[in-house]
């Protein structure tokens, strides 16, 4: 017993050492090949197309999106976005010339950054494929040879636009059109980088494909665009991680992710967002699932100043299944406005949303979600569970679900609870020799476990540590 406890204490001090502060908060010197002028106008958008040497339809698409962006109003609901100044942001920053195939060719500063983030290590661990995006461009990419032979495509979005123009044109902006919301329009106008994945019929990718996104310049806007197509009976697991240094001025990250899951296919998309807490993280993610397909969003929101993100699943085919597992941790000065949406359009479709949120040190976390069972979606079922923990008096937790049921032959269940860690639980663990901090961390980890166990190993370890760290001295 005592041995176990001392090991625990060692671990805790280890956590303190490695995560004593936001560990990704370092900044590298800016050494960009090209940096667009500050602010947004038609010239900037044209310049992006020009540098990327894009085809006519994409140039048009960007211009139209910019017009839509100007016309659209800011969302009147959700988190407070009034402090975003669109004229103060750099919309396009190019850190290197082209995508490097070998790690040795990546420019030194960028390499150092990713070394500190542990990316080459991750690759050594036999990850299936990897993309690293620095500022606006994908700077490094690799894919295992055997995956190439199976016909799996995993490349930067810009590259895909040139190599698979037809497939991209058919799907790009169709699930999330620029008119969807102001930030989708913004992304459509100035997007750069992101991943393109195609998994051919029946192919199961047995290792996760990974992408890392990094903002380095101050006042930088990152607008990556990801498109995933999972063909019939295929499977892929995509994992993305995000970090940024801490500057005194705010940055903006506004991504668009579109996923198509064909008949019997399955896609799992895992995000652990750990932006520094001066980043606005406003992301639109949507998947369309055909007959008997499965879409799973695993969405972890730990960082950022404000996050507004509600991964959506459109269940378009019979027996399609959608799942959203959402974790939000809101600390000092943070507002996590996260959740999920499932739209049932076909019979016998099922969905499940599980949200776990923790508010502490004056942070605010909100669950916002939608279940829409349309007429005709007979025998559909949906279940939503939202659990929230509030750790001190200054923090706040909200739940804003909307459940629309237009088909009587269907079942919906929704439940939510908000609570504090029980004194009895703490007392019990403390009597077993744990300090109050350790006991709280254990209870919080237990609270999250349902979702954490779904993460790839290295991420779940990281998440547990981050939570342990954030908990230190947080007892209210």
């Amino acid at each position: 017993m005592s041995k176990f406890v001392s090991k625990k204490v060692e671990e805790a001090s280890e956590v303190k050492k490695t995560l004593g502060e936001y560990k990704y908060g370092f900044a590298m010197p800016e050494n960009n090949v090209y940096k667009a002028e500050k602010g947004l106008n038609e010239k900037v958008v044209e310049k992006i197309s020009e540098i990327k040497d894009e085809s006519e339809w994409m140039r048009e698409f960007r211009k139209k999106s910019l017009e839509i962006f100007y016309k659209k109003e800011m969302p009147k609901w959700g988190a407070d976005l009034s402090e975003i100044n669109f004229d103060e942001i750099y919309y396009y920053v190019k850190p290197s010339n082209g995508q490097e195939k070998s790690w040795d060719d990546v420019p030194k500063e960028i390499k150092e950054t990713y070394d500190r983030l542990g990316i080459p290590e991750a690759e050594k661990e036999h990850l299936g494929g990897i993309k690293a995006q620095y500022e606006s461009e994908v700077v490094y990419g690799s894919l295992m040879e055997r995956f190439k032979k199976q016909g799996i495509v995993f490349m930067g979005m810009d590259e895909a636009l040139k190599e698979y123009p037809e497939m991209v044109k058919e799907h790009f902006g169709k699930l999330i059109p620029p008119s969807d919301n102001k930030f989708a329009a913004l992304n459509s106008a100035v997007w750069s980088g992101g991943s393109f994945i195609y998994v051919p019929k029946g192919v199961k990718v047995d290792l996760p494909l990974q992408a890392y996104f990094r903002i380095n310049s101050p006042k930088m806007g990152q607008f990556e665009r990801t498109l995933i197509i999972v063909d019939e009976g295929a499977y892929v697991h995509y994992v993305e991680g995000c970090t940024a240094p801490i500057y005194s001025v705010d940055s903006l990250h506004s991504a668009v992710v579109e996923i198509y899951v064909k008949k019997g296919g399955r896609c799992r998309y895992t995000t652990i967002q750990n932006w520094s807490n001066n980043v606005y993280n406003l992301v639109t993610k949507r998947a369309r699932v055909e007959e008997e397909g499965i879409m799973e969003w695993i969405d972890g929101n730990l960082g950022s100043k404000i996050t507004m993100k509600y991964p959506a699943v459109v269940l378009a085919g019979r027996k399609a299944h959608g799942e959203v597992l959402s974790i939000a941790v809101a600390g000092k000065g943070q507002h996590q406005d996260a959740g999920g949406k499932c739209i049932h359009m076909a019979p016998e479709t099922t969905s499940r949303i599980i949200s776990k949120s923790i508010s502490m040190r004056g942070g605010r976390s909100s669950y916002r979600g939608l279940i829409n069972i349309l007429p005709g979606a007979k025998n559909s079922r949906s279940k939503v569970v939202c659990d929230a923990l509030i750790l001190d008096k200054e923090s706040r937790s909200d739940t804003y679900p909307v459940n629309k049921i237009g088909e009587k032959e269907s079942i919906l269940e929704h439940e939510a609870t908000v609570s504090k860690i029980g004194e009895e639980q703490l007392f019990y663990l403390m009597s077993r020799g744990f300090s109050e901090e350790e006991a709280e961390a254990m209870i919080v980890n237990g609270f999250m476990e349902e979702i954490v166990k779904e993460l790839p190993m290295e991420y779940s370890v990281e998440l547990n540590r981050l939570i342990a760290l954030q908990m230190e001295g947080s007892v209210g």
Partner: protein
Amino acid sequence: MKKLSYKGRSMVKTLRVGSGEQVSLATMSVYDKPRQRGEVVIKAVVMDGAFLDLSGIIKIKKEAHLAEAFLRQKVLLVGDKARAEAKPELEIETDEVKASHAASVGRISEEEIFYLMGRGFSREEAIELIIKAFLGEEDEN
């Protein structure tokens, strides 16, 4: 659309939204002093072509520590083209509270109807019995 509004600490409300009717019902429970307790239960049956819009919010203010709040919305869609929206919301501004809500939208299962018909009720009578039981039943919790 007929609008009903309730504001209170504890109540149970049952309603039947008749054919073609549109009803919206909003409840708001505000907790602003320590140790307040409250519970709101709404049970509704929605008939042919009717629409029910249920919203209910629990607000626990900073001063209301040790509050215990509960909201339940239970809807049974009975008629053809019956539709419902359930929006149970929580806004919690302090810790040391217990707050929860649950919403469910369901239907009458064919097994239930079949069983009652086997006992000699007509289909209409069986449905009517099930509705009465649903509206009159004690809350499980």
